[in-house]
């Protein structure tokens, strides 16, 4: 009697154990998240998976330290080097600050001014999301005289801006910081992480169990919809669009991405551009630049960027994918327009 019961119960026990295996976290991976409103004028959410709770906690607090430091360093109106330059101070640049300025100015030149970090006077004039001022032609003409990256002097250790000029690294800051965070988390040997800096996403490695991260691309016209899903790891997905920061006046929409040729919000026929790239800094730079370029020129630009893809949301409600050749290690699944 006893031996018969044992014969039946052992496989039953095994069945129950195996069925519960996926639920009990037997791979020794602890997943923890943190979110904060305190930096970069946005909501920041970071999730890490690590071998223990203390490893995850220490990785997250390390991330918050990094974000805080760069928030102060890069704030256009703060006490860091950008804010001080904008207050007409002469600043002794650190090696990192100098390298970042050089790199950002390089991207301005490479995109032929589609990305231009010197348009801060224009942003102040329009004050999108603040005073929401529609300036007249004279105001725009006067302000454009104080804009243009090529008017900035060559970057030196002791650096100052010409009178009246101001820079804003907002178009590259989140990407730059996301890359710093992924470097840090990689060195901290976390198993995987998802960095979300206000919709600027970086996925480190792959999820618990080896599945790729899935990152949706928000539809610009349907708040509840998405136009694509990116599957992969060690990849960044960054969107620039007209649908987040804007105001409507007299039947027209004014958004926050400026075109230096007109001194007004870019009218390129696009509602949003999403760049998928191994580097979040590159994705951030290119999402703004390609948005200003428009579909035709933007697609041409992307076609020679290896490992980079772009999802365009067009004003007619359709969506298009462009890929710049080899590499990347991710898949973009289009879900149609709207």
């Amino acid at each position, binding site marked *: 009697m006893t031996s018969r019961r044992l014969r039946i119960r052992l496989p039953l026990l095994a069945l129950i154990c195996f069925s519960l295996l996926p639920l009990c976290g037997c791979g020794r991976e602890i997943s923890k998240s943190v979110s904060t409103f305190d930096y970069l004028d946005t*909501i920041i959410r970071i999730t890490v998976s690590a071998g223990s709770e203390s490893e995850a906690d220490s990785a997250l607090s390390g991330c918050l330290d990094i974000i805080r430091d760069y928030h102060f360093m890069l704030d256009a109106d703060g006490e860091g080097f950008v804010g001080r330059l904008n207050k007409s101070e002469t600043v002794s640049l650190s090696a990192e600050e100098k390298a970042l300025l050089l790199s950002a100015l390089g991207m301005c030149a490479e995109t032929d001014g589609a990305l231009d970090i010197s348009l801060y006077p224009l942003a102040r004039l329009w004050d999108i999301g603040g005073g929401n001022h529609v300036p007249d032609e004279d105001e725009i003409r006067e302000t454009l005289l104080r804009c243009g990256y090529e008017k900035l002097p060559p970057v030196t250790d002791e650096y100052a801006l010409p009178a009246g000029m101001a820079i804003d690294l907002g178009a590259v800051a989140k990407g730059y910081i996301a890359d710093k965070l992924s470097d840090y988390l990689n060195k901290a040997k976390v198993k995987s992480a998802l960095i979300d800096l206000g919709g600027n996403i970086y996925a480190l490695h792959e*999820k618990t169990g080896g599945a790729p*991260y899935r*990152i*949706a691309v928000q539809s610009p016209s349907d708040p509840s919809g998405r136009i694509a899903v990116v599957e992969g790891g060690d990849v960044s997905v960054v969107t620039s669009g007209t649908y*987040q920061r804007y105001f409507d006046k007299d039947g027209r929409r004014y958004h926050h991405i400026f075109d230096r040729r007109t001194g007004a919000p870019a009218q390129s026929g696009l509602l949003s551009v999403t760049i998928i790239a191994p580097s979040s800094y590159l994705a951030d730079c290119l999402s703004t630049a390609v948005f200003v370029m428009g579909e035709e020129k933007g697609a041409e630009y992307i076609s020679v960027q290896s490992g980079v893809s772009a999802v365009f949301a067009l004003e007619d409600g359709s969506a298009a994918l462009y890929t710049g050749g080899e590499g990347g290690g991710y898949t973009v699944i289009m879900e149609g327009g709207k």
Partner: protein
Amino acid sequence: MTEAEKRLPPKREIVIIIAVLALLGLLAAAVGFSGGKAETARVLVDGQTVKLLSLSADCEYLYTGSEGAENLIVVKNGGVSVVSANCRDGLCVNQGAKSRAGQSIVCLPHKLIVQLEGDSSEVDAYAK
């Protein structure tokens, strides 16, 4: 005890096996077959949950915070939106109605998030 009774496992064991299989089936259904529709909206202020709203029935929730902060959150037809707010930028109202798990509506001035929850295996984040 007859030969047939000896070969068959007792009733109790059969019941347990069926129960385990049913549980597994339910789990698989929960993980695999839901379409990413959110089921609840969690309202968080400065990281703390202040309200859970079910999306299965239409309802309204008026968040009132310190210094007169107000956001009117409305659940309608399975979606949630902030229909009015007295924050300085109004960006939460601009974000429209959301209905998929993983999406969120953010009001920075009031440190408020409306987080849609449901099938978490659908997507991990929204690029926007």
